[in-house]
């Protein structure tokens, strides 16, 4: 029997679980799992296979673009950046991408919360619909938007146009097309995280006096922060690179509705390959830079819990 009242076994003992995984390292090597099987010839062969595949498919072709861009020193970049068609297109692309990403962030978080936290009829259908932009060809998306919002014979187009808002063949249409194709990226990043964290932390916050807005800002948002940032970066990369839907919806008018990807195509066909390579390089650079920044910022293990 333990009846000594002073014996406080709960008291003051150091955490029995050794403090684990404090490092913020970024290495995700094969040794991550701890026990590493001895490497046989098979391991090397598989590794070689993967590297060869990635090299032939991605690394080599992209490096050719970089190489071609800098063939004559900085000449190609200078030519491209002094061409108003290119700079205008880059500007438009950035504006469109930022708008599309902003829209997708707000609606992405909202739809994710709706999908995870609420049960309503048609939830399964909504969840499936969200993947549509990934499976439907962007060209079809462009056509569909034209049919709905075309200025002369679209369903809503004439009405919007008479109200002073031109959608098709203008920036709003381009933003819509871009937002459409990149919609699932934010949602698909956030939903699994929301499902994993559950609702107990939010309930705890409520019982401690936090209202819905405070709970969202102080508890939910910090929990999904990294998933959201990653989703935003993926959307940004996708928005910068959108071609098919934008080509149909924008009308592809140089200096007005021509985005960077459209410029690349046009310059390439007009035998201004130098400018095409340089613009491609810039597009790839922004996307890669965003991914690299996030990879370095993201803690290796940010959801460590129970």
């Amino acid at each position: 029997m333990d009846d000594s009242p002073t014996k406080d076994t709960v008291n003051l003992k150091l955490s029995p679980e050794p403090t684990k995984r404090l490092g913020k390292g970024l290495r995700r090597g094969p040794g991550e799992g701890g026990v590493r099987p001895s490497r046989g010839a098979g391991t090397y062969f598989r590794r070689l296979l993967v590297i060869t595949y990635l090299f032939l498919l991605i690394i080599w072709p992209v490096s050719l673009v970089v190489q071609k861009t800098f063939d004559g020193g900085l000449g190609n970049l200078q030519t491209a950046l002094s061409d108003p068609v290119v700079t205008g297109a880059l500007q438009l692309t950035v504006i469109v991408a930022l708008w599309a990403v902003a829209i997708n962030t707000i609606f992405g978080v909202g739809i994710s919360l709706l999908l995870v936290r609420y049960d309503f009829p048609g939830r399964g259908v909504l969840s499936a619909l969200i993947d549509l932009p990934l499976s439907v060809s962007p060209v079809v998306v462009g056509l569909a938007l034209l049919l709905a919002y075309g200025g002369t014979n679209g369903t809503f187009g004439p009405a919007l146009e008479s109200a002073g808002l031109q959608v098709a063949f203008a920036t709003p249409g381009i933003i819509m097309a871009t937002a459409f194709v990149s919609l699932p990226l934010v949602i698909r990043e956030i939903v699994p995280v929301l499902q994993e964290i559950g609702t107990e932390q939010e309930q705890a916050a409520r019982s401690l006096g936090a209202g819905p807005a405070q709970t969202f800002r102080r508890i939910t948002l910090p929990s999904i922060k990294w998933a959201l940032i990653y989703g935003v970066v993926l959307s940004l990369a996708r928005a910068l690179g959108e071609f098919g839907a934008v080509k149909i919806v924008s009308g592809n008018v140089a200096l007005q509705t021509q985005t960077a990807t459209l410029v690349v195509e046009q310059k390439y066909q007009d035998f201004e390959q130098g400018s095409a390579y340089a613009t491609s390089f810039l597009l790839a650079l922004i996307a890669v830079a965003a991914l690299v920044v996030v990879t370095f910022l993201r803690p290796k293990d940010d959801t460590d819990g129970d």
Partner: protein
Amino acid sequence: MGIEIRGINKNFGDFVALEDINLSIPSGQLTALLGPSGGGKSTLLRIIAGLETSDSGTIEIEGNDTTNVPAQKRNVGFVFQHYAAFKHMTVAKNVAFGLEIRKKPKDEVKRRVDELLRLVHLEQFSHRLPAQLSGGQRQRMALARALAIEPSVLLLDEPFGALDAKVRKELRNWLRRLHDEVHVTTVFVTHDQEEALEVSDSLVVINDGRIEQIGSPDDLYDRPASDFVLSFLGPVTRLGDHLIRPHDIDITRYEHAATARGRITRWTRVGFEIRLEVTPDDVLHPDPIQVVVTRSEAVALQLHEGDLVWLRPRAGVEELSR
């Protein structure tokens, strides 16, 4: 005062979780809601906290009708089975959460957090993240966090259910001592009768959405209102025509006025106690009778498996049930 629960009903679809619950929980006491899993006790606790709504009935906390008050305005401290620690905040920030929501001045928050962390023996962990604490430490942090808002009632939902047996025992002793210090009206849900009997001032046994019995641990253990309460609070066996607890049976090796006679057919030693099974000769009551004796009693009586023994209720033991 305390908590007044009147006519609470709750259905989940066809499933009746709670049926016409009427209960008054006195101020300043530690009350256990005890019952099997799925019996409705957690639902009742969540309704008191406002995390769940009842279909009908009213809840009054310290004289205020809170039936339609949202959870964040009830000033109720809630502790979850799986801690519900805010994973992205340090221990100190977790505890400070409710105070910061209430916009208390910084120095007051700091003072109060220090005080609470001392109370739960976590003062040297204040800058750690929950992931760096053990389960028991996380639950103590959750308790400090709930106490920080000076709640009018403290509700604990299976607070030690996720911990291993040893830590669970330590923590419930500690909870009892803590309650003796802070005296906040506390309700905790458990399916562990030992935990409920050991810690609480009064017990409410809930089964199938209904209250089976309300009373002190002694009342319930000695005077159970139903066979369910009797068997839920501890092991029972049938001696003659009565249900009785196995340790309330007197066992001898010599003939005397006994309720039953039989041979010891099973012998299980668990620590200091020995659990016996005696198969009676009585053709009317052929079912084996469970008897529990301490090891020293068994040695003194020179009991062995296969011995013929006589059984009768121990003197002074009330007959529990027909």
